[in-house]
């Protein structure tokens, strides 16, 4: 033992502290990502969904600025310009009142997008309040609130909307009111399901033990963690509201000229489609379809991106 100790002479520097390399200590092997950054990273890989997102951004910009920049008047009937095919002056042609279809299409985009987004936002607020309370309180409150939802869920929505529109008279406000009166139910169900699941997690208990009140727990703990499915639901509400608006316009309950939605434009174009004025139907129809498509692929993409199970 003694001899061995003498033989093996370890250099002193071996036993000096290596010292902390400040740069290396801070380096991260794999970038740490928050839930949202991670979701965004995955969404960005989905080309179709990104295409939808880009399209929607462009559409929104055009809806805001194109009517302002357009030189064409859409308030006074211009018989000299009736039913002209698309040309350099009128990119999408003109309609039977001589109005520029390009300009009207962007006015229509304003109406359609506004209806869609407003309906989604109102659904969102009613849905999270109702669903949040129902899921968090549980017990009898939940049972009663869910009974009400079950019955409302069984109502044929579009028929109720038609009824409300007939009574209240067609206008932008009535369409949004009618759509949201029946539309918030789906959102409330989703929020409730999520809250029910999350409220038993430890961090909620911890929050409670620090004396957080109901409203604080719902706002700070539960809702941020239910945002994924809620956002997906909102993305899918927008196209269905736009579709419902187009449908209502089509059966004669739409917002009337001059600022008409896409549905109204398509409806007005129907009787003349066989006389060859295809552009009057084609452009509003194209934009309804593209917008629906964009929202649907974006919603699907977000569903995949926000699914924690797929987080890799």
């Amino acid at each position: 033992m003694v001899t061995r100790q003498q033989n093996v002479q370890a250099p002193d520097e071996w036993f000096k502290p290596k010292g902390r390399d400040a740069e290396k200590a801070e380096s991260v092997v794999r970038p740490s990502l928050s839930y949202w950054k991670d979701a965004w990273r995955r969404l960005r890989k989905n080309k179709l969904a990104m295409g939808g997102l880009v399209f929607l951004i462009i559409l929104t910009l055009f809806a805001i600025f194109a009517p302002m920049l357009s030189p064409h008047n859409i308030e006074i009937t211009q018989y000299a310009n009736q039913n002209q095919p698309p040309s350099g002056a009128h990119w999408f042609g003109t309609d039977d009142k001589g109005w520029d279809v390009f300009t009207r299409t962007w006015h229509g985009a304003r109406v359609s997008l506004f209806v869609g987004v407003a309906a989604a936002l109102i659904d969102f607020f009613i849905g999270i309040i109702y669903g949040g309370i129902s899921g968090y309180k549980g017990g009898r409150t939940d049972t009663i609130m869910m009974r009400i939802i079950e019955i409302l869920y069984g109502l044929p929505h579009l028929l109720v909307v038609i009824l409300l529109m007939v009574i209240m008279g067609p206008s932008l406000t009535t369409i949004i009111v009618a759509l949201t009166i029946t539309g918030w139910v789906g959102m409330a169900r989703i929020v409730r399901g999520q809250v029910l699941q999350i409220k038993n997690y430890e961090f909620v208990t911890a929050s409670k033990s620090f004396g957080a009140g109901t409203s604080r727990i719902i706002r700070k703990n539960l809702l941020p963690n239910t945002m994924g499915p809620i956002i997906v639901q909102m993305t899918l509400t927008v196209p269905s509201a736009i579709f419902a608006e187009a449908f209502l316009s089509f059966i004669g309950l739409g917002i009337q000229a001059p600022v008409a939605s896409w549905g109204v434009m398509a409806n007005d174009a129907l009787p003349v489609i066989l006389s060859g004025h295809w552009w009057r139907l084609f452009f509003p129809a194209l934009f309804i379809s593209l917008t629906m498509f964009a929202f649907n692929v974006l919603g699907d993409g977000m569903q995949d991106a926000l699914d924690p199970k797929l987080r890799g």
Partner: protein
Amino acid sequence: MAIYIVKRFFMMIATILIIATLTFFLMHSVPGSPFDEERTSNPTIQANLEKFYKLDQPTHVQYFDYLKSIATFDFGPSIKKPNETVNTLLARGFPISFELGMVTILVAVISGITLGTLAALRHNGIIDYSAMAFAVIGISVPNFVLATVLIQQFAVNWNLLPPATWSSRMHMILPTLALATGPTAIIARLTRSSMLEVLTQDYIKMARAKGLSPVRIVLRHALRNALMPVVTIMGTMLAGILTGTFVIEKIFAIPGMGKYFVESINNRDYPVIMGSTVFYSAFLVFMLFLVDIVYGFIDPRIKLHRKEGDA
């Protein structure tokens, strides 16, 4: 199961009652009397008319009369079409709309399931991609746009099929196609995703290991479970097809109930609007009830449970 059916039945009655009540009070909130437009300056005639339609009674009496008339399927007269009642309109129009709806559902279910299953079996293949491309387009294009394009191409440009009405088999093709594409797309997408999930399950591997033919595995083992989500959305789908008939009947000039309904909306024929809304809602709620019961019967878990009880 019996308790479930009874419970669902009472839910259905409650829903119909709510719709009827909502309709009644909305109707009453429309300002003015329905006879204001009739220019009957004579107050006696006005009073007699109101008496005839029982409008002089207090609201709650009218309400119960109204419920009674709904329970006996009497939806009242049209005020814009003389000699017509909502019942005669329904009797004339509804069978046609029903036929259109049923043919559409058949087409949508059969082609949607076939398409979805093929797409799942050839996952990430050409069939899969083209089926899903079709599905996304089918969901995005509104049926009135599709209907117009179909008329333009098949009826006007190529002169293959009649452009309107509902008088023969050939006349039925275009409206059905226009109405069925959306639901077909939804069913195809759903079938595909649930089929993909089911095909990875152990019992499918087991069936393969037993040496069953692929066709048999898909038809007998996979499809049954894969179709549960499809059955779940049948209710919503029915509602969509029903409202779709309004649009399609208008475009193709099909004399169904949808056409009368849209007409009544456009000339504000309140009794017809109210009557058909209640009728349609009740019909839809009843269909939802049937779907739920069917679901209860085909859900393998419920079936398994019962077998265990029997044994």
